[in-house]
């Protein structure tokens, strides 16, 4: 089955075509607007992308990756119907409806979160120049690893932090979610507090490699004396803010460039120490809550996906601390928002005949998986 996927739920505009037999998911085409600047061959064809410029960018993307104008060869159209930002979602939804209608092909409305879950089934592409060979394989180096059900899924990104029990394809139960900020948001905001350029998350991870993870004992919210699987990160963010205010040797909140921080006295934490300790705190919470979810549900595997699943330290800690349970991650290329994962999720719904009338599908900003 060949599935065309469209994703416009928030910041990203993405289109992809996936070919699958249900076991192997091969990416035939995939383009993600925010990555375009990195591909010289696209330069000039697609307008310079600002976040959420879906209207300007969507059809040029179709042209750029060569989607046949008559839909030839495509079996199913899959589009993110929610959750997300309504004006953004609508661009993709209306385009998908029009295409499905004009091409007379079946249409699937996909849940963005199910897209993230499905991202682990997609094979990474060795031809992708931005990523080193070996980091592209599905299962992070473990080719052929297929999540066994039931699986505990940790979905962790800038906008979401949720734990789900996946009993089987398309069958989910909510185990816990954040009560305030998402983990990715915590990274971004602490990055901002540290004066790091957007996106702060990856920069924190880089600095963390040179810091001491036990330098500052930031709080691990909702860990002590608490048995549920919900999360909370806003207290941790505030704790970092307070720490920085009280640390005169660290650069101030609205300081200059911190790319080369000054050396600090050995008894005072450096920027790297703050990054390392903060990252340790977030990862400790994510690991511990996942462990609790595992304890409650006895799954056969764990899936960790979403933008924050690209974090190497998180990958390492998850694997080590949940061992011997297999922990499966998407190829790095598919950790962020992308249409390939939407096409993959679309397949699972298409298999079940869950199609929607193109005249009827509506964007739903609050669409829930469980």
């Amino acid at each position, binding site marked *: 089955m060949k599935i065309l996927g469209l994703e416009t739920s*928030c910041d990203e505009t993405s289109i992809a075509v996936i070919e699958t037999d249900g076991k192997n998911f091969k990416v035939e085409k995939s383009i993600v607007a925010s990555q375009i600047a990195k591909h010289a061959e696209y330069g000039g064809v697609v307008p310079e992308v*600002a*976040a*959420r410029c879906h209207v300007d960018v969507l059809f040029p993307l179709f042209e750029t990756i060569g989607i046949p104008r008559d839909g030839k060869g495509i079996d199913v159209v899959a589009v993110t119907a929610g*959750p*997300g*930002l*309504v*004006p953004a979602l609508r661009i993709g939804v209306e385009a998908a409806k029009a295409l499905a209608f004009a091409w007379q092909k079946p249409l699937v409305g996909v849940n963005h979160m199910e897209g993230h879950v499905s991202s682990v089934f997609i094979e990474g592409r060795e031809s992708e120049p931005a990523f080193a060979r070996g980091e592209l394989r599905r299962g992070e180096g473990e080719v052929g690893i297929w999540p066994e059900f039931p699986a505990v899924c940790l979905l962790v*990104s*800038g*906008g979401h932090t949720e734990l789900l029990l996946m009993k089987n394809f398309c069958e989910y139960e909510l185990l816990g979610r*954040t*009560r*305030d*900020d*998402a983990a*990715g*948001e915590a990274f*971004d*905001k602490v990055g*901002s*507090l540290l004066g790091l350029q957007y996106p702060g998350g990856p920069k924190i991870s880089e600095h963390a490699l040179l810091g001491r993870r036990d330098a500052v004992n930031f709080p691990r919210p909702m860990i002590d004396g608490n048995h549920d699987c919900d999360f909370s990160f*806003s207290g941790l*963010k*505030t704790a970092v*803010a*307070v720490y920085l*205010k*009280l640390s005169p040797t660290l650069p101030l909140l609205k300081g200059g460039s911190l790319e080369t921080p000054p050396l600090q006295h050995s008894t005072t934490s450096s920027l790297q120490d703050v990054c390392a300790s903060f990252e340790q705190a977030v990862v400790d919470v994510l690991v511990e809550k996942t462990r609790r979810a595992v304890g409650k549900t006895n799954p056969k595997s764990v899936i960790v996906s979403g933008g924050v699943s690209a974090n190497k330290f998180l990958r390492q800690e998850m694997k080590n601390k949940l061992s011997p349970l297999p922990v499966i991650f998407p190829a790095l290329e598919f950790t962020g928002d992308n249409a390939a994962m939407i096409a993959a999720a679309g397949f699972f719904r298409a298999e079940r005949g869950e199609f929607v009338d193109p005249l009827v599908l509506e964007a739903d*900003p*609050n669409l829930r998986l469980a």
Partner: protein
Amino acid sequence: MISKSLEETKKIAADFALTLQGGEVVALEGELGVGKTTFTQGLAEALGAEGLARSPTFTVMNVYPAASEKIKTIVHIDAYRLRTPNDLLNLGLDEWVGRPEAIVLIEWPHMVESAEIKADRVVKITTDEQMNERVIEIE
């Protein structure tokens, strides 16, 4: 008003919620960590919102159905990641601003004036170095 805890912030917000008539735009100002989203949680709960108000930093706009006498919808916006007034306007705000049974709450409202949206109420939250207490001023 002084708040020394999350609960106190929510209580102040709940009291404020009861003064709303519907149709207002509320600007919510304060630096990272002062409790803008906490305030919104207290306000939303007081208005009978379904579910918890969560940070809209990445989602940009969250819409919560409410169940108070005057207010049936709370639109919770976070302009933290927005860069131009158009970013705010493109959210389809004209569907919500001024609608009698809805209120629009905007965190990081720096865009509001330049987008020519008038804030009917302004909530300013400030704090000290240690971030132990919050001072909440409401206009």
